[in-house]
């Protein structure tokens, strides 16, 4: 897949309020930031998958713009995201929600 195809597919999945990631069928590792070749083993035998849509706060920070952090997912990948909700601290479970951010439908993490 070309990188533009990966982005188009991600945008479609975001629009249906689901969280995509990429799984390498050669080494079995997962990653989120679109690359047409697996960054772990170099294989192009990859597949776009749908995550359970739940994760955990790996780290977080608060500044004027709100909360932001790294979310790790049980499928083995991680992503930067805005975080909403109460009691936002490392280790808390989050669910992934979607909204328009800067003209694009994008995922954000929500602490229930």
């Amino acid at each position, binding site marked *: 897949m070309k990188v533009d195809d990966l982005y188009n597919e991600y945008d479609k999945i975001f629009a249906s309020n689901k969280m995509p990631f990429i799984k390498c069928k050669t080494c079995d590792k997962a990653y*989120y930031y679109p690359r047409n070749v697996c960054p772990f083993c170099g294989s192009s035998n990859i597949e776009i998958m749908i995550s359970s849509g739940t994760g955990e706060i790996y780290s*977080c*920070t608060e*500044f004027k713009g709100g909360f932001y952090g*790294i979310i*790790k997912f049980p499928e083995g990948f991680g992503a*930067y995201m805005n975080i909403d909700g109460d009691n936002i601290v490392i280790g808390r479970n989050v669910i992934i929600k979607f909204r328009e*951010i*800067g003209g694009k439908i*994008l995922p954000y993490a929500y602490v229930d």
Partner: protein
Amino acid sequence: MISGFAEAVYKNYNGSVYDLMDEALGKALEMAGLERKDLDGFMTTFLPGVFDGNIYMHFFPDQICGYLGITPKYIDSLDYGGPSVLSALWRAERLIKDGVAENILLLFGGKGSDVRKRKQTVDSFEKLYPEITNTPYRHLINLYNSMNPVSDYALVAERHKKIYGSTDTQRAELIVKQRKNANRSGYAMFTGELSLEDVLNSPVISSPLHLLEIVYPVDGFHAFIVSNKPGKLRGIRIQNYGEAHQSFLPPEIDDITLTPAAESTKNFRREIAKCDFYELYDSFSITVMLQLENTGIVPKGQSGKFIEKNSISVDGDLPLNTGGGSINRGQPAYMSGSVLLYEALLQMNEMADGNQVKSPGKVFINGIGGWYRNHSVSLILGD
């Protein structure tokens, strides 16, 4: 060997970046006893915005040489941000040894105040140009409300607190102790009494990081002339060297508190322990703590406690960032590598006056680039 070194650093420089680099070069040539025609090698770097606000310049090393009136037969540009100058020193030494050139000018810095006036940094420069993106990950990175580079350092500081129990007070201790070094140096830009309360009561910019834990970007250049003869200076060379690079984003790294500094130092940890003083990259308080741990100076997770217990002054247990570091000297064009190297050379040549390390036999320098995580350059200087 370095035959001349100089700096031209201002909080906000009113003239052009070209005047600034010319000033640093002029001083370094004077120390080396060389003329422009003697320079046959040139190494530099370019960051968006730091050359009078330009996002880029055509063939910029050539344009700089043309402006400065130097005609090198070897030209290079390194793009690791902060530690680029340290890599340039290692490459220059090898080129000279191989007879490629005799006097190589390393000219690193810039004038970032044009970017600052527009409320952006080199990391957020793309916000001024909506049609431009500086990452292949486009909106998956740049539409979120990050505050880079501060927020990425904040994420690693928060993680360090959680995993190792380090505290805001421990990070503040480092800032207070580096300020003491700055006050003693007589040549720092930021001086005066600073207490733990001052640091802890300064505004939280991106939790847990306070304003006074963050380096202040300034305008300036450093010029280092690497030569086949040391001239009037001590004939010091790189004794041990390592560099390491990694390109995964923090969400893709298992442990973000483990930086490439672990890899870049792995072949000479024992030599590091024997050094007389240490200059560690200090873009933020947490940057220094990560390097203390990752280079093996302090066990993993123990940097906070170590800083509380030990003196880092020139006559202390572990002389560290002896001139006050870039936190107090200012960070020219978002890169601290030159500040570390300049201070190391002052000390090694016993030019630090009342703030002199006693018997400065060897110095360990560590530079970090690409936030805290992409590049590490580690070296020991001695004779």
